């Protein structure tokens, strides 16, 4: 038998209505934040970035693919990883299904990573994904948008991620278990793994000029991670003490 409180439909309803009021407030708060986010000023991007894509060399403007808005998922896949980050993979499983809808609403969603294009292409084939994925290998893009860091920054504790210095679990000197697990799943050591970080950046293209409008990192990605929003509605919630997920083609092996 369950130890959870059970009740009649009427008792449940009374509690549910109370929660509903709080949920509606949260939805309105989310709408309000979306409005404020749109009001953030923009920064003109003057640097010329050169990416490698399935279609050949591309500029940042080319990544828009004819649309006026670009979302870049900063996918953790460093040049020395043997596979893409497994955690990013669970996020990508979600957006792969709806990039086509965004594409028909004037938004191109593209992943960008530092690994060479051939590695990205092979991994994308393995995962069966369709979203565009560009390599920023050799350019400053990932460093400028605070998702890749140099060994020197790492050594000196100078990593500024999620708008603060040294504030993230990946910066701790005592390596947390989930970080070590994630590193192992990409076939690399912790230091190499944590020189890449996850994030999402938004850009707009207007009269041939690209503007950076927004970037979010760390738990700012939580709402973009489909599986968590569903788990938040399950009786046991996220129910986790560490990394429990694998890549979608690896579950059978456990």
């Amino acid at each position, binding site marked *: 038998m369950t130890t959870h409180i059970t009740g009649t439909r009427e008792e449940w309803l009374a509690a549910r209505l109370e929660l509903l009021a709080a949920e509606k407030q949260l939805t309105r708060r989310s709408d309000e934040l979306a409005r404020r986010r*749109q009001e953030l000023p923009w920064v003109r991007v003057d640097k010329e970035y050169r990416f490698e894509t399935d279609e050949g060399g591309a500029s940042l403007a080319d990544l828009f693919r004819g649309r006026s808005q670009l979302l870049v998922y900063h996918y953790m896949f460093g040049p020395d990883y043997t596979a893409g980050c497994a955690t990013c993979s669970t996020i990508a499983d979600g957006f792969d299904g709806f990039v086509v809808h965004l594409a028909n609403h004037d938004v191109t969603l593209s992943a960008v990573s530092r690994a060479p294009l051939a590695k990205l292409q092979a991994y994308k084939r393995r995962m069966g994904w369709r979203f565009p994925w560009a390599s920023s290998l050799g350019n400053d893009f990932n460093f400028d948008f605070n998702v890749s860091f140099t060994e020197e920054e790492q050594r000196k504790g100078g990593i500024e991620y999620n708008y603060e210095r040294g504030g993230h679990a990946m910066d701790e000197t005592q390596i947390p278990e989930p970080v070590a697990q994630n590193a192992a799943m990409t076939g690399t050591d912790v230091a190499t793994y944590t020189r890449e970080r996850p994030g999402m950046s938004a850009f707009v293209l207007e009269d041939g000029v690209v503007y950076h409008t927004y970037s979010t990192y760390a738990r700012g990605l939580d709402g973009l991670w489909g599986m968590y929003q569903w788990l938040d509605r399950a*009786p046991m919630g996220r129910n986790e003490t560490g990394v429990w997920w694998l890549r979608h083609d690896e579950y059978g092996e456990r």
Partner: protein
Amino acid sequence: MTKTDLNNHKVVSLSEWLEARKQFLTQEKEFTRLRDQLSRQRRELPWVKVEKNYVFKEPDRKTTLAELFEGRSQLVVYHFMFAPDEEGPCRSCSFWADSFNAIAIHLNHRDVTMVAISRAPSEKLEAFKRRMGWNFKWVSSGNNDFNYDYHVSFTPEALKDQVEYNYAKQQTDSTDLPGVSVFYKDGNGNIYHTYSVYARGIDILNTAYNYLDLVPNGRDEDELEFSMAWVRYHDQYESKSGNTRREAR
């Protein structure tokens, strides 16, 4: 949601932007914590024992509500709008399905089974699922009470008056409306209803909207006849690679 005027937007230096961004970050963090808090509150809701024996239909077999758990203890049901006499399901629900299709496998590894339920016959569900390339389980509630008991389907008789949807009396001419319901099965096989959510409560479960909330134009639906007027089945957009805003209108 109001649309940003892309042509006259304020452009600033990186340091000014950072200042505005950091201020906004504080509000975003507050929001994340508020969301976490509601998730905790949600888990504290009492549960209601399900006494009725619902039987659903798959193309080749019948399945009980208990069997839908597939050996796991938690079941999340997406109430997918597809009335028996319709040719295809709701376009918006199909948009939701595109966003959850590939993550169901991850939920399975947190003791959660995900299933879609509609009133349309299972053959129709199966054919549409094949067409869309989906792999989640989708069963038919046919003529059973399930959809009516969980307030997502309404009889012609009920539609003459106000119906109960999203915990309020509402006027609608839709026989089916969207929602999500959650169930728990204990070790003795007892099933409990734990949670149901409807209307804009399922917004957050269509992750695509959380992505649109990050771009300069936002959801960009204000000028449309209804909010999701731009949504098509994913194989029915005019251009596979997508339209620009100008082409779309």
